[in-house]
């Protein structure tokens, strides 16, 4: 074959290529290559193959690997060939090795020795081959082995070798800066190399070094400027010209380096202006490479200390780019414009039309670049146009990566510059409709929060108008097929919360829509959960205002279906709906107040409503509670089981890990020993105060009203622990489940006399309120940065605190019989103290905790496998069965009302923050201030919902 001379391949290779080319299908091609590989395997192992033939076989192997087939059997042969004396064979060996393996491969160690030897060769071509291989194959560990030789080669007489030695050293520096850090000065030296090629190559490592630490190279600014000047003035040999431009790649590299060095440095920038002006003047905008240099000049000018003359020149060149017919130049022009408007936003004005043209261009690259520019120049005055455009484009593309990016940019801009709330909601609707599954779930929660909190400062009318328009738009959008899950969640939540509030839509209509949603997404448990809870809320609101809502057949079937769902979460929700429907108006109104999604939920975290019961039990001769620290492992299995259940409730999937009593004891012990100063629990003189001690720590044993700073300290403790070690986290939910019971009791049975609240506790709330005030300032800023209305968060926080105060004071009223019972401690220590801290936060929702309980029931066996609704009380019941009696005795409707209350809280709170790991932190702070009640413990939901 013709092109074989010294290069070409044999007939066999030609045939191989031809047959691959003629292959009708991928399978046929694969068969051909597999056959080829078998042949190669046989031949390569054959010791009698002549060396020249070996070379060809190896190249065929490289070819097969390039087509995606495994050629690992031949790697060793490539390594062997690097040992060959003949240069062509050696080069082929190096080439094949470099293509086959990387520096981490085991075989590299066999090549290092060869490279070492070849670096010392007298033949500079061999040295070059070795340097090329070294830059590819020498990893961090092997660098010391070849480093001395490479450094020696920096002084090699041949410039090609010096150049490659510099690059190899640069490569070593990239791989492992520490192993060549002592040689960095060599790069500076090589900048003065006689050969411009070597000097040019040195600029590559210097650029990296300058990027890392510009200050260390400020002294070189003058040298760089001088070099650039000489190059631009054509002082170099003409052999360095490229398309009549003197050494353009060197110029570009120098301009890049100067841009970094001159950034924010007036003095250094001062040296550069002259040469930059010269380059602009001489600039050749006719050739591609000339434009490349001009563009690099613009970049440099936009980075260094601004100079109005330079900026004018840059703006002028940019407008030339933008007016050009070439798409490439337009692209560069848009990019340059993006850089220049950072310094002077007015520059964009005169190019508006050109920018709009680029936006209409069929070229996707140009379009994206233009959107990037628009993103940079968005202001509150142009946001509507820009975001509309972006959304339009977002809808038209299919590339998920870019879709997600542009969606997040839309959201970011909308949050930053939204002109009106109406517009914000509409924009968000569009974003969610078309890219809902690609945007951060946090955005969905912000939207829900925004709708719930309203926007107008004190203008309820505007808020409700906004909500009703949101409801209208959502009802309309629901007709669309294939809505993203996160958008459906928002829709369900808003419909549940505000669907009937303006009276425009009958409840049955909304419920029907929600049923449709649940039905249309049989596999999306999250959406179904949202839908069912929304239905529950609508029923609750209807009942509360005394309207009778007909049970739609589809709703009935939905509830039936969900009651038997595999998802315990859905089951629970279904049972809650059913339970709620059986309640009277008053009970429903208290468990599910209208438009209360922004209210705090107050929790009696000391289970004080059980105090009288405990005391009664003690009087009847029951054994007093022994804290876990006092107990040995065998004392009470029942207690451990409760502990286990509590632990498990936080992370349902970890049930096995906590089933053994041993692991749970030490944790509980350590916590208890820290927080329980007294071991002798029975004769506590002032138990109601004792509880307070408990909260604020040992430092205040007298139990008088704690000061704010103690409260603050305490709070921090709790928070830290909550987010800190695993053990605390896992135990945090049980408290919230019990506390939600308490809250339920507190809310629905405030007249029942069971809840007990002492003066001390009230004061502890006071301290917490103070705490909340401190946090709220920070919160306001956050809200302001997100939605531009600082006062809102504040307002909500105040409302939340007001609610807190009211609820605690009602409890105080009923707390006349704040009986001092040692037995109270029986209950309290069962909940690990850090949780008590957490309970201070107003929003524990029982949704997550209730679920694992029900799961647990199944695990524990049929005995306690009670219906999900009562599951929350099941653990405590299994421990102290009498608890149930106090529920029924003292609180009248307890088991009836407490449990729906749990559900109600869940309905009110869990919907917002479903399984939002990323919103966790935010929610936590939000809850502290009482801005939004959100679902807690997203971890749990993650476990449950996958």
């Amino acid at each position, binding site marked *: 074959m013709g092109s074989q001379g010294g290069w*070409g391949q044999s007939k066999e290779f030609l045939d191989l290529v*031809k047959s691959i080319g003629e292959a009708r299908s991928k399978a046929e091609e694969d068969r051909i290559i597999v056959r080829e590989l078998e042949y190669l395997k046989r031949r390569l192992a054959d010791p009698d193959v002549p060396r020249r033939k070996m070379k060809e076989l190896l190249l065929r192997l490289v070819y097969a690997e390039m087509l995606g087939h495994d050629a690992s059997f031949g790697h060793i042969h490539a390594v062997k060939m690097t040992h060959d004396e003949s240069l062509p064979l050696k080069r*082929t060996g190096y080439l094949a090795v470099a293509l086959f393996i990387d520096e981490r491969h085991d075989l590299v160690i066999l090549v290092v020795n060869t490279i070492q030897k070849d670096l010392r060769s007298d033949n500079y071509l061999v040295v070059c081959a070795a340097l*090329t291989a070294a830059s590819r194959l020498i990893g961090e560990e092997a660098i010391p082995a070849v480093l001395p030789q490479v450094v020696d080669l920096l002084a090699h007489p041949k410039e090609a070798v010096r150049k490659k030695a510099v690059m190899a050293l*640069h490569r070593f520096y990239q791989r492992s800066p520490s192993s060549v850090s002592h040689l960095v000065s060599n790069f500076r030296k090589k900048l003065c190399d006689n050969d411009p090629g070597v000097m040019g*190559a040195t600029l590559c490592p210097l650029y990296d070094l300058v990027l890392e630490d510009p200050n260390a190279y400020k002294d070189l600014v003058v040298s760089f400027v001088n070099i650039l000047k000489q190059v631009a003035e054509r002082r170099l040999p003409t052999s360095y010209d*490229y398309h009549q431009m003197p050494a353009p790649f060197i110029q570009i590299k120098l301009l890049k380096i100067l841009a970094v060095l001159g950034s924010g440095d007036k003095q250094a920038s001062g040296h550069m202006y002259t040469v930059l002006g010269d380059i602009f003047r001489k600039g050749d905008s006719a050739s591609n490479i000339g434009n*490349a240099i001009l563009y690099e000049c613009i970049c440099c000018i936009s980075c260094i200390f601004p100079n109005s003359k330079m900026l004018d020149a840059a703006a002028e060149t940019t407008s030339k780019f933008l007016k050009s017919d070439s798409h490439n130049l*337009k692209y560069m022009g848009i990019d340059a414009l993006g850089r220049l408007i950072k310094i002077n936003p007015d520059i964009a004005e005169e190019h508006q039309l050109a920018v709009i043209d680029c936006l209409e261009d069929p070229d996707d690259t140009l379009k*994206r670049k233009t959107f990037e520019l628009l993103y940079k120049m968005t202001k509150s005055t142009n946001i509507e146009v820009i975001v509309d455009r972006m959304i339009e484009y977002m809808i038209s593309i299919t590339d998920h990566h870019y879709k997600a990016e542009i969606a997040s940019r839309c959201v970011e801009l909308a949050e930053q510059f939204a002109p009106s709330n109406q517009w914000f909601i509409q924009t968000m609707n569009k974003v969610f409709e078309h890219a809902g599954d690609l945007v951060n779930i946090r955005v969905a929660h912000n939207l829900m929060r925004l709708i719930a909190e309203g926007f107008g400062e004190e203008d309820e009318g505007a808020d409700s108008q906004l909500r009703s328009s949101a409801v209208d738009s959502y009802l309309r959008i629901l007709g669309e097929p294939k809505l993203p899950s996160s958008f459906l969640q928002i829709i369900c939540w808003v419909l549940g919360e505000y669907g009937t509030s303006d009276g425009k839509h009958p409840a049955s209509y909304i419920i029907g829509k929600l049923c449709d949603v649940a039905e249309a997404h049989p596999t999306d448990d999250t959406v179904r959960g949202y839908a069912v809870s929304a239905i529950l809320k609508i029923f609750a609101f209807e009942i509360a205002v005394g309207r009778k809502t007909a049970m739609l057949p589809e709703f009935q079937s939905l509830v039936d279906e969900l009651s038997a769902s595999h998802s315990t979460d859905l089951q629970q929700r279904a049972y809650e709906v059913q339970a709620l429907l059986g309640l009277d108006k008053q009970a429903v109104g208290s468990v599910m107040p209208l438009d209360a999604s922004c209210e705090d939920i107050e929790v009696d975290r000391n289970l004080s409503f059980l105090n009288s019961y405990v005391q009664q039990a003690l009087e009847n001769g029951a054994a007093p509670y022994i804290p876990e620290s006092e107990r040995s492992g065998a004392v009470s299995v029942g207690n451990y089981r409760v502990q286990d259940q509590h632990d498990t409730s936080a992370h349902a999937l970890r049930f096995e890990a906590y089933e053994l009593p041993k692991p749970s004891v030490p944790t509980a012990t350590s916590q208890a020993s820290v927080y329980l100063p007294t071991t002798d629990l029975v004769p506590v003189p002032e138990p109601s105060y004792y509880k307070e001690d408990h909260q604020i720590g040992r430092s205040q044993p007298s139990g008088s009203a704690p000061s704010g700073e103690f409260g603050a300290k305490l709070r921090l403790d709790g928070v830290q622990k909550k987010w800190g070690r695993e053990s605390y986290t896992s135990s945090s939910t049980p408290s919230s489940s019990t506390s939600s019971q308490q809250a339920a009791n507190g809310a629905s049975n405030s007249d029942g006399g069971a809840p007990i609240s002492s003066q001390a506790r009230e004061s502890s709330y006071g301290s917490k309120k103070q705490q909340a005030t401190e946090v709220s300032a920070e919160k306001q800023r956050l809200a302001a940065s997100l939605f531009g209305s600082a006062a809102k968060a504040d307002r909500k926080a105040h409302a939340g605190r007001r609610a807190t105060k009211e609820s605690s004071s009602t409890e105080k009223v009923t707390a006349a019989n704040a009986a001092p019972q040692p037995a109270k401690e029986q209950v309290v220590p069962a909940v690990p103290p850090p949780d008590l801290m957490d309970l201070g936060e107003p929003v524990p929702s029982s949704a997550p905790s209730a679920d694992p309980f029900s799961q647990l029931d199944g695990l524990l066996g049929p005995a306690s496998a009670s219906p999900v609704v009562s599951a929350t009380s099941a653990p405590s019941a299994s421990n102290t069965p009498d608890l149930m009696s106090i529920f029924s005795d003292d609180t009248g409707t307890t088991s009836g009302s407490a449990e729906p209350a749990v559900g109600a809280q869940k309905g009110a709170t869990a919907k917002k923050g479903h399984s939002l790991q990323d919103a966790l932190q935010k929610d936590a702070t939000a809850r502290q201030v009482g801005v939004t009640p959100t679902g807690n413990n997203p971890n749990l939901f993650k476990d449950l919902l996958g």
Partner: protein
Amino acid sequence: MIQAVMVISTLGKPRLLKFYNFQDPEKRQELVLSIFQLLSERPEGVSNFVETDAIFGPGTKLVYKHLATVYFVFVFDNSENELAMLDLVQVFVETLNRCFKNVCELDIVFNFNKLHTVLDEMILGGQVIETSSEEIVRSVEDIVGETIKHNKPHTKVDFAALQPLIFSSHFQDRIRRTLPEEIRLAFEFISSGLSVL
């Protein structure tokens, strides 16, 4: 730095792959496929740059040139200048043209090791070290130890792959513009069938 140099035929077959950050063979095929899909969707007469954040990671771009039956693709990060990279493609093609005289796809297929040699003289470790095609040819000749002969492979089947890269794009464009639709389609059908290597 330059991340990769690829030559891909217009049918999606890799003709030359060089990655300056090692990629394992499966990943290479994946990258070739996604790049090819990207390029084949691009209409004529648009810019030569594509942002490849989704394929090569944030900040990466590629510049490509469609010549005759192959795409030349250089992938690089934001420490390189797009227009300069475009010229580097030009240098590469010019150098190949000097080595093979009217270089065509067949030359590339049969001499991919030579292409590697040329590239190694241009780019080392992802950095440009030489941009003069004369200089590159000279070093390549030194390495080979002989003056490069301008021989063409003889084959009876493949017309499209024999199209000189430098001129062919004009030729194809002219055919597309001037011939009636049916003939153009026939031409494209034939050339696509024949250019399969």
